[in-house]
């Protein structure tokens, strides 16, 4: 995120899209409610009528997969009505002419048709967003887990750039990071193309500094993403998976295909429970959970915070396990404690260089970039002007996803999260009360569709996609748009049996988990 989480309270207008904030990031959802309570304005664009939509000033119930078109439609109004921040555009951006040309055809009528919303609401949202002195955008997986996810993000940054809503309190384009340490895992270079601090493996200088520090030669070839590794295993190119604390057998798109790949390869799993993925493992190592170890997590606002051991470990910490494997494979090394690893890491990581355990303690967390030990950290990025010179407007045409065009699968299924459960329920379902409130998977459908399909609330339905079939209970809900359906992704043999892993966003390699063509019938 460019801005701190509490900073949404400084915005005059908050635009929430593709994020069911009160369910997936509950405390942040409360900040949005607090802002609304104080008279700030709220725009929500989502295929589902989420709880925040109930209190929104404008709610756009867009068809899944049409976010980019909505951004273009809003920009059309912003340029046409002169609501753009011309001074900001002039000073800080490039490529505005091309974008203006592109959005010409995204008239309110044309956009309303694509998105399935009222044109008056698009106009209202555009005026509200660009008309305020500070507006903030919050977005999440509904934007990124699409085959055109990167383009959706471009659409939102175009909005922020055109209205000068970057680099000041209460503004920003803020991607909410789903998991507790997804930000940290990326910062640490747990990605196929970068070392820590996003230094490219293909960059000779970056490689050189890691080679010098680690005393080995390193590969300069970008590796495979998780989504690419699964098909590679099916083609016998990947022979072994070493998996830490993940449950791809449930969480990844097209579970059947993932399970086949796991069956084929040699699989090592480090986890705290025997997950659905561990069931496919050849070796399983019991790991310590967060309450049993020291270390740091980096939250969505780039704040590095401490994790502290409270009870004795049941297994071994993941770092102890890895350290032993390093030694067994002939790479001699030793760390007494997690802090030693942090110290080694920050010497190689410019954005974390000034962060120490002591300083985290003193400051109640520190936001990177923090280049040296006198630096106070950076809660707001891009202050005054975009970080790397001029920011570029991206003019990309909206296109419908292939999944939405299949006549044999006419219903657009999207996936969602519920507040009580976390991901694949491995941890949350162990709390009895949670399991009792939310024991089973279900699919939510629109009342009118339910009547047409002759489905009563609570009846079992069969949902079929090109990947597989699932049987779940139907819940009839006003919050669902006609022609769409929504299913929580937490359960095995649920949503991800249906999702497609073959079509990925060409840049981010994210599958379109939020848009699946299905057919649905009563059993």
């Amino acid at each position, binding site marked *: 995120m460019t801005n701190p989480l509490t900073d949404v309270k400084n915005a005059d207008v908050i635009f929430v899209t593709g994020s069911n904030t009160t369910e997936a990031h509950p405390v942040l959802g409360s900040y949005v409610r607090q802002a609304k309570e104080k008279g700030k304005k709220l725009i929500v664009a989502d295929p589902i009528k989420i709880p925040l939509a109930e209190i929104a000033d404008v709610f756009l119930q867009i068809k899944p997969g049409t976010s980019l078109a909505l951004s273009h439609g809003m920009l059309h109004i912003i340029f046409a009505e002169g609501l753009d921040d011309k001074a900001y555009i002039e000073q800080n951006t490039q490529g505005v002419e091309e974008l203006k040309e592109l959005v010409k055809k995204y008239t309110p009528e044309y956009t309303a048709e694509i998105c399935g919303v009222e044109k008056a609401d698009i106009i209202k949202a555009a005026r509200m967003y660009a008309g305020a002195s500070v507006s903030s955008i919050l977005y999440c997986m509904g934007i990124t887990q699409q085959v055109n996810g990167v383009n959706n993000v471009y659409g939102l940054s175009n909005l922020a750039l055109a209205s000068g809503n970057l680099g000041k309190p209460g503004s920003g384009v803020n991607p909410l990071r789903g998991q507790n340490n*997804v930000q940290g895992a990326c910062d640490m270079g747990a990605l196929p193309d970068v070392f820590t601090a996003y230094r490219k493996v293909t960059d000779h200088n970056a490689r050189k500094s890691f080679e010098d520090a680690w005393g080995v030669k390193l590969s300069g070839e970008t590796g495979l993403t998780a989504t690419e590794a699964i098909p590679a295993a099916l083609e016998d190119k990947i022979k072994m998976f070493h998996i830490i604390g993940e449950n791809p057998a449930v*969480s990844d798109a097209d579970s059947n295909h993932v399970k086949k790949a796991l069956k084929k390869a*040699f699989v090592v799993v480090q986890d705290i429970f025997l997950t659905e993925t561990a069931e496919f493992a050849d070796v399983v190592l019991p790991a310590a959970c967060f309450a049993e170890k020291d270390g740091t997590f*980096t939250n969505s606002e780039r704040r590095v915070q401490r994790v502290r051991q409270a009870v004795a470990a049941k297994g071994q910490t*993941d770092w102890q396990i890895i*350290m032993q494997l390093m030694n067994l*494979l002939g790479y001699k090394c030793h760390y007494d404690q997690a802090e030693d690893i942090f110290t080694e890491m920050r010497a190689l990581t410019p954005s974390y260089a000034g962060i120490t355990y002591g300083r985290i303690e003193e400051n109640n967390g520190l936001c990177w970039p923090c280049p040296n030990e006198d630096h106070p950290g950076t809660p707001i990025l891009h202050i005054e002007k975009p970080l790397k010179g001029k920011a570029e407007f991206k003019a990309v045409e909206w296109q419908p996803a292939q999944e939405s065009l299949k006549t044999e699968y006419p219903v657009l299924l999207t996936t969602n999260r519920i507040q009580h459960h976390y991901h694949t329920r491995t941890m949350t379902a162990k709390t009895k009360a949670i399991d009792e409130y939310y024991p089973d998977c279900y699919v939510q459908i629109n009342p009118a569709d339910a009547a047409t399909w002759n489905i009563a609330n609570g009846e079992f339905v069969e949902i079929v996609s090109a990947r597989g079939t699932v049987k779940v209970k139907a819940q009839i809900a006003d919050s669902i748009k006609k022609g769409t359906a929504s299913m929580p992704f937490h359960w095995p043999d649920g949503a991800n049996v249906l999702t497609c892993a073959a079509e990925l966003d060409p840049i981010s390699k994210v599958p379109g988990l939020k848009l699946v063509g299905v057919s649905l019938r009563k059993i």
Partner: protein
Amino acid sequence: MINIYINGQQRSILPGKTILEACKESGIHIPTFCYDERLKPEGSCRICVVELEDSHKLLPACTTEIAPEMRIATHSPLVMRMRKHLLEIMLSNHDISCLKCERAGNCLLQDYAYEYDVDIEKYRGRTRESAYLAENKFFELDQSKCISCGKCARICSQLQGNNVWAISNRGFETEVSTPFGIDMEEAGCVHCGNCVSICPVGALKPKKEHKFRAWEINEIQTTCSYCGVGCQMYLQVKDDKVVGVKPAYGKSNEGLLCVKGKFAFDFINHPQRLTTPLLRLADGELHSVSWEEALQLIADKTQEIKNTYGADAIMGLSSARVTNEENYLFMKYMRAVIGTNNLDHCARL
């Protein structure tokens, strides 16, 4: 800055502050029930009264702004008598079963009753009773212990934004309930437990799996391991088990938690936790083995695959759930020891 005198001591304080804030800054403790720095002050419980030395007026410290040359007495005989009196009234209908109360040892009413040496029997009347029971699977409300401070209702409406609680029937009959006494979920409760965490007494309390007394536990501050908000929390530990969670004031959570942070900790000590390494043997089943054996086998197999098919035949999946230190070390392992950039984690999910 303006000049005031607290208990005869001169202080300069920023204008606009309340007497309570000025005292806090000066290191003087004043009892409060209905005050919380994050909430709009309501001034309803009056336990924070202080005396203006010039007029002998008693004023609530939490809602009264300081004025130039104000002379404040925080513990004068008049103040002490007033606080004692207020506590005795509060206790008149309170269910004083401290022996088995959930909050014994961690209760403001108990602490102040002791501090102000109250006479419990002074106004003793009928214990507060209510036919209305509010509960869900995570926590419950015991009206007989409620002191009507209203903080539960205010945190729910002002900070959490769900408006589940309402304070009804002003006066002696004051009661906390959902609107018209409907079910909590129907009233919009999402089980965040923020009302439970803010209740100063034993009225709102979690339904606990493991019982513990306030003095039996250690509290360790850490970061919630669920979503990307990164709330700060205290893990409450008894006999090497996490038995409860209490919110801490982190910069990203301002003392709030959600249902997962507050209540979803049973997994830590769950019997299904893995404790020994498992190896799949010829029978196709997983069997317990020693750490040495498991680690050696992984090392051998990794080496063998690397030798036969090359390092790029190995894929590492790190985790957005584990620490930075562990992600860094696994990254180093994949790149420096195995020799491949085939490394990713669940960022895309």
